[in-house]
């Protein structure tokens, strides 16, 4: 039980995928201008990341390792992720057309979110079990969601703030992301 808690804390705070490992930065900058969109994106990514971590573990340990095909893991994980994203896209299109419209191009772009492939590959290098892999993916997704939502809330405030002209828009966003990253560095050594 304790090691599960360690995995969760380490993926959410200490080794946060966005701010410490710098994976998945494109949706982090791209979808964070509105809080509602950020929450939708966070939900979709959480779903995809957890499901992709589980299914890539299954593909790896049930198909690739018995056949001595570990060298194929990158290409098969990409296949798994693409399928999971496509499935999520269909599900959201059916269940929430508005969210589907708002997420727009970023929904298929979860496929190329490096955090998703990063989680799958790190699961194999760290030799996680099935439950550890799932938790690792889920923790990474929660960390991503936490950071994305916090950041979008800050950007909504920045929209009405009196920012000097050269720093307006994306520039102040980058600086804010850097400061957030510095703040998250403070968690290192916690676990």
């Amino acid at each position, binding site marked *: 039980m304790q090691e599960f808690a360690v995995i969760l804390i380490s993926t959410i705070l200490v080794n946060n995928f966005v701010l410490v490992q710098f994976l998945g930065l494109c949706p982090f900058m791209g979808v964070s201008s509105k809080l509602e969109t950020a929450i939708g994106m966070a939900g979709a990514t959480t779903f995809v990341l957890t499901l992709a971590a589980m299914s890539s573990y299954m593909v790896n340990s049930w198909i690739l390792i018995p*056949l001595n095909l570990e060298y194929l893991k990158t290409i*098969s994980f990409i296949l798994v992720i693409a399928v999971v994203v496509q*499935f999520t896209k269909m599900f959201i*299109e059916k269940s929430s057309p508005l969210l589907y419209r708002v997420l727009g191009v970023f929904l298929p772009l979860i496929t190329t979110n490096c955090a998703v492939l990063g989680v799958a590959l790190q699961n194999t290098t760290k030799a996680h079990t099935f439950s550890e892999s799932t938790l690792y993916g889920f923790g990474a997704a929660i960390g991503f969601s936490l950071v994305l939502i916090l950041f979008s809330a800050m950007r909504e405030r920045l929209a009405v703030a*009196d920012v000097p002209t050269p720093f307006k828009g994306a520039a102040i966003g980058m600086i804010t992301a850097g400061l957030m990253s510095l703040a998250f560095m403070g968690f290192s050594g916690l676990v």
Partner: protein
Amino acid sequence: MYDIIVQNPFSAALVALVSLSIIFGAILGYAAVKFKVEGDPIVEQLDKLLPQTQCGQCGYPGCKPYAQAIADGDAINKCPPGGQTTINAIADLLDVEAPTLDAEHGEESEVRTVAYIRENECIGCTKCIQACPVDAILGAAKLMHTVIASECTGCDLCVEPCPVDCIDMLPVEKGLSDWKWGLPPTVEEQILTINPKDIIASDHQQVEGNNSKDSDDSREKTA
């Protein structure tokens, strides 16, 4: 058979990837059937936002076809009866910038109007009846026509075809029955009305202070 496949790395890779692809293809195929979307739900939502005057000023035969056209990528600023309110609502739904009304399709009228036929001048030609998109004009050939005011959407389409120009567009007077409180400003509007300088300390205040000092100095000099 299994041993041959496993021992030869090429056939093993081939079999693994092909079988993976077939399994995933089957899952996606099943999901495509299971989660099939009937029609385009965004069109329904757009249609609800449009004013349903069916006036055709946007260049489409009605509000539903225009909603379909917006979903296919047409401009959202072609609806004069809806005006800026409708454009803002659609822009909010589609998450795009709200443009101003396209003047090519007509101007937004400040007040809601309703058609009125001066009945002693009407010759009973039925041309306005054919033009009305909502069937709000009552009458028959060579008999006087009249407008059902509660059905009229004020779209102006009947004014043009009338050969004796006996149709007026009259503003609807606000009475006790249709008066209502305005909506309170939303949180976003309240935030926008606050001057940013009042929230966050900035160097602007200092500059203003200097300016006032300068003007004081100049005033002293002139004095």
